[in-house]
């Protein structure tokens, strides 16, 4: 009885601390949501919860900036980058994990080593490369340089190493070529890894800021993060509209998170711990 009381008190303390953490995590986000429904004059001071709810703030965002365009650009580019990254990474990971060839591990170590190089080092030459290829201010320039990644190759290699080799050996004996071993055996079994990589890549690219910022000059090609930044600097005083835009830009990642939570957490633990 006594022990149960002590345990109960302990759990109570844990819950109280967690609630404090959760409240301080949620407070800024709640302020953002409430402010997005307020008329401008009620943003400063006054109550936290809007007295009257102004959902027309959301449609005003679309009138003031080409927000729908930003949305479409972001999703379009992120979808392409995700598809290409998963494809090139899975194929590369297959070569690094299932095939035996000279220099394999040396090349893989070189891949890993480049993960340590700061993005800014390669950013500048990539920009000059895009200038030379006349890909400034284009979808292609936004998509192609992001469609390859050492990280994805690394993550999927780790996944593929856990798939028993006997499976593809059996298939090879049955006369299957490497491509069908890859497509029919390894890829389905590496599915959790591919899903995790797809979510990571999509979100990373959906939120990416630096590359679109330097590459894109015309408003019609801007992605959400860049468009939002210019919205903030040109219409900075319209806090309610800015918050409405922020809420809208956060909806896709939050939905994706709620759907893919399990895969993501597995992927994070896998990439780091097993690495």
């Amino acid at each position: 009885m006594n022990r149960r009381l002590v345990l109960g008190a302990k759990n109570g303390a844990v819950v109280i601390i967690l609630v404090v953490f959760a409240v301080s995590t949620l407070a800024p986000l709640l302020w953002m949501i409430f402010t997005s429904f307020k008329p401008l004059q009620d943003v400063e001071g006054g109550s936290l919860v809007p007295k009257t709810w102004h959902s027309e703030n959301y449609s005003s965002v679309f009138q003031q900036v080409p927000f729908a365009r930003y949305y479409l650009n972001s999703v379009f580019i992120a979808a392409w980058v995700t598809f290409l990254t998963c494809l090139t990474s899975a194929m590369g990971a297959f070569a690094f994990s299932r095939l035996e060839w000279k220099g394999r591990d040396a090349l893989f170590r070189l891949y890993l080593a480049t993960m340590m190089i700061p993005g800014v080092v390669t950013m500048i030459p990539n920009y000059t490369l895009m200038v030379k290829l006349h890909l400034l201010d284009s979808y292609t320039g936004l998509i192609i340089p992001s469609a390859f990644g050492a990280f994805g190759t690394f993550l999927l290699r780790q996944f593929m190493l856990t798939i028993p080799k006997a499976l593809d050996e059996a298939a090879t004996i049955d006369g299957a070529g490497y491509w069908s071993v890859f497509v029919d055996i390894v890829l389905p079994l590496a599915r959790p890894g591919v899903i995790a990589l797809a979510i990571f890549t999509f979100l990373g690219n959906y939120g990416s800021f630096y590359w679109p910022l330097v590459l894109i000059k015309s408003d019609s090609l801007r992605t959400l993060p860049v468009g939002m930044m210019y919205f903030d600097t040109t219409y900075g005083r319209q806090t309610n509209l800015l918050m409405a835009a922020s809420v809208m830009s956060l909806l896709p990642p939050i939905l994706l998170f709620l759907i893919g939570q399990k895969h993501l957490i597995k992927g994070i633990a896998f990439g780091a711990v097993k690495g």
Partner: protein
Amino acid sequence: MKKNRSQLRAAIGFLAPNLLGFLLFTAGPVVFSLGASFTNTNLQQTIPLRFNGLANYSELIHDKAFWLYLVNTLYMMLGLPFAMFGSLWLAVLLSRKLRGISIFRTLLYLPSFASGVAIMILWKALYNPDFGPINETLRHVFNALKIHADSPQWLQSTHNMAGLDVEHVGVTSKQFGLGGRDAMILMGVWIAIGGNNMLLYLAALSNVPEELLEAAQLDGAAPWRCFLSVTWPQLAPTTFFILVMSIIGGLQGGFETARVMTSGGPAGTTTTLAYYIYSLAFEQFRIGYASAVAWVLFAFVFVATLINWRFGNRAANEM
């Protein structure tokens, strides 16, 4: 032998797209960037291109801005230990098997998951010294406690908790207070605390052998003692990994926040090395000098990693 050759041919096929991208957008640029750092390359090309040896690097040594921004970068990394131990604390709390505890995990993970320009615009509004909710709350608190104090000017202030000077690398009491850099730190901790590091600690905690903890409890060790002598050493590899990644990230960090929230100001106090490189390369088009600064930043990251490896391996072996 025949099998080996067919495997090599297959490997070339599978690797081709990946390797092409790697050479074109990673390996090639690394070489190009190193070369450019020894030239006067300028994107506007108004000056003839020439090799100028170590001129960029010696300019960097005498560049007062570089040293000030290095100090800014290091100062803003002071949030890392708070974020790290906060993550550990949260993970310990969340590792208890209570009903509904996964809801907390999801909630606390939101900021780091959603982080990006939208969250920075949000915090910029929160920090507004006149109308933002943070100072509004502070004013209420000050009134209630009858304290006569000015609220911090946050992103508009050069003040900081270490009293770093604005014009020179050094310390002055005039600059003591809460300012832009501290605002960045606070926001960074808010974003990171329930993020990936917390998940890594959670995974590591579930791998601590129950027998060890039970044995310690049987020996009459207090919970705090159990944690220090059993759990903490078991977490060493995870802590080490998080530390290395945080330092690497911290040294390269601060570009997005500076660009979105402060443009590096006021008076350059929120400019980190990453933002400095951006403004050198893409605002002043000084590709050569920007590349040199980028390589020095890379050198810092490299040295930090090496020190971490040495220190980390020794620490892990001793435990």
